[in-house]
């Protein structure tokens, strides 16, 4: 799992690449905490995330709660169909608004849409 951050139009973009599972989640959680300003807007780009486990879902949920607590705002982009389906049926579907492409996610955040 690789966590990388870029910034576009004052919006943070976090790319999660690889498997987000029990092995990688603790480190991913640490890196997200270190990299992100939780008071502003974030796109979480999942296009390169091949698998997400129970532990991984909880990383995303924790991120959502942290952003909400601090006045930030997050959206997902590029979820694969299977990952999106798993998130939906395990009750994590409402954690973040979800968009097909990063550009759409950026546009939505820019407009303030959640």
């Amino acid at each position: 799992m690789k966590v990388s951050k870029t910034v576009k139009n004052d919006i943070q973009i976090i790319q999660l690449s690889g498997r987000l599972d029990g092995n990688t989640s603790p480190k991913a959680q640490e890196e997200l905490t270190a990299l992100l300003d939780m008071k502003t807007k974030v796109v979480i780009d999942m296009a390169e995330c091949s698998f997400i486990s129970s532990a991984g879902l909880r990383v995303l949920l924790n991120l959502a709660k942290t952003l909400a607590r601090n006045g930030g705002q997050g959206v997902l982009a590029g979820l694969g169909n299977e990952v999106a389906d798993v998130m939906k049926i395990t009750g994590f579907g409402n954690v973040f608004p979800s968009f097909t492409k990063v550009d759409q996610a950026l546009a939505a955040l820019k407009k303030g849409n959640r």
Partner: protein
Amino acid sequence: MIRIDSYPTHTYKGFKLRPGKPLPFGATIVPGGVNFSIYSSHATGCELVLFKKHDPKPFARIPFRDDFKIGNVYAMVVFDLDYENVEYGYVMDGPFDPAQGHRFDKTKILMDPFAKAIGGRDEWGKEPDWNDIYQHRARVAFDDFDWEGDHPLEIPFEDLIVYEMHIRSFTCHESSKVEHRGTFAGIVEKIPYLRDLGVNCIELMPIHAFDEFEQSRISPVTGKRLMNYWGYSNVGFFAPKAGYAATGKFGMEMDELKNMIRELHKNGIEVLLDVVFNHTAEGNEMGPYISYRGIDNHTYYMLTSDGYYFNFSGCGNTLNCNNPIVRNMILECLRYWASEYHIDGFRFDLASILGRDQNGAPMNNPPLLESLAFDPVLGKCKLIAEAWDAGGLYQVGSFPNWGRWAEWNGKFRDDIRRFIKGDPGLVGAVIQRVEGSPDLYRWQGRSTSSSINFITCHDGFTLMDLVSYDGKHNEANGEDNRDGSNDADSWNCGWEGPTEDSGTNFLRMKQIKNALTILMISQGIPMVLSGDEIGNTQLGNNNAYCQDNEISWLDWSLVEHNSDLFNFFKKMIAFRHAHPVLRSREHFRNTDYVGSGYPDISWHGTRAWYVDFSEQSRCIACLLCGKHAKSGTCDDNTIYVAMNMHWEMHGFELPSPPPGERWHVFANTDVVPPQDIWDVGSEQPLDNEYEVLVGPRSVVVLVAK
């Protein structure tokens, strides 16, 4: 703050360890590791065995040091485990001495009785590796969930309409058109249907971990594989059945189930679990080692004096429910489901076993049942007993209850079935059943909600089959039609099985509507078997416990094919919800205590104010005074129900409606749809105020307004 006990104190072959905490039992995620705790009062040693998920061989065996044992509990923290990808089991050392009740075997790897997640049957019906030394694998579970403010609904018991269903049967048929057939997720997709039907509670047939391959075999009749389909045979009590989750293959069944419960709650639907604490999947002396018998056989099972298994369950063994250890396990288990899964209540399979002592004798005040009745965590849970067992104990009306326990009312089922069939001599019994069975419950000070009224349930015929078959047709089960009940009180309406004869089919539909109407106007809690609302058939199989195929799966094309019946169910359910006079918690007093001019309930026959109790009488009518609704605390319409189970038409002389009101027809099962039933509020005025003609084998429901 970092706890000072969050560091290892010992190592063993590279694993970092420290003494664990004995409570809670099971595997618990703690800072830096996992706390493993297991009880055995007769073992002489214990090893923790760790597997990578799905691996055939363990990657570690870690003995519990003597100083890691407190009392009879082995407890140890193992640090730095990738617990999402670990499966764990135990090896117990101790005597193999069956006559003394001990069956320890160091060659067996044993599942934790407190496992919150269990692998090995992750995908339904996927043939397991029978050479696997560890078939049912305990896993470390995430038990956190974002409930989004959800809470058990706590709907008043008397306001429930229960819908009994099987997770797989409900959506497995391709006609269900759901994305995840036969799963918890599939139920979520069908919530709009449940809302449309109007039920506010689903009772799930067992969803605890079980092995669908237990006693699996090929039917000599159909050539199809027979399975342990219903699942009344627990592998583990704390874990949901992974194969019921679309995400079971990812180990996410807990989250998927919680999501299902949360979504049902959002839609006003409670969830009851059918729990099977009377026996386990380990069977008798010949059965496999899964967990309990290898961990502490003497504690977990009721044993004869020479060490054989008592068989009050009919399934080979009997859980030792009133042993204090087992009692605590059951209590902790139910607390877990109530608090961690927000389950609204429980139906206890063969619950009379829970009231037997360790030698099998029925007790007057069984401590387990008392503990459950008074437990604070379970304080708002519905507790429902199947008040009999396979050892001959039958406690309908006498189940130890402390005012908390309700019962599946088998007498309601039997009396109403016979009445509908046209048997003589049932008028007196029908009065009792419609009133909420005061003969069974009032004398003990128990409310009407002690009575779960039902005509069909998973055991026995579906409602369609009840009116289509005289005898059972269980050949597909491969037991020469010997299995299943023989005294179903069914009647085929003149032809055995499906027919094109329109007269017979009309009569069958009418009989179904008669049954539903009597169920819905009776005091107590009605329970409907899933699929009855669309005329689901099992082709006369009255014991489909092994049929994972179209015999059991609901055919959703029937919603359209039998749309008139579905419409009748919806409106009759809506009628019950609309009229509190049908849902009194207190028993009737058979007097007028609000000054309305009518008793709370009065009984009539073909003559008003007169009941013919003679043997040949099959006509009876009741008048429910709306001013007495909910013991006079709310105002409702006055309702009159005429039941004619004679094969001839009868005129029923009507009691006068309340002053200024007229009788209106809400339902008449003898009328061709759609005029057999009306919307609540759209009831049709009755032309003749003095008499209503009730067709042969028909029920008429009138509302005064």
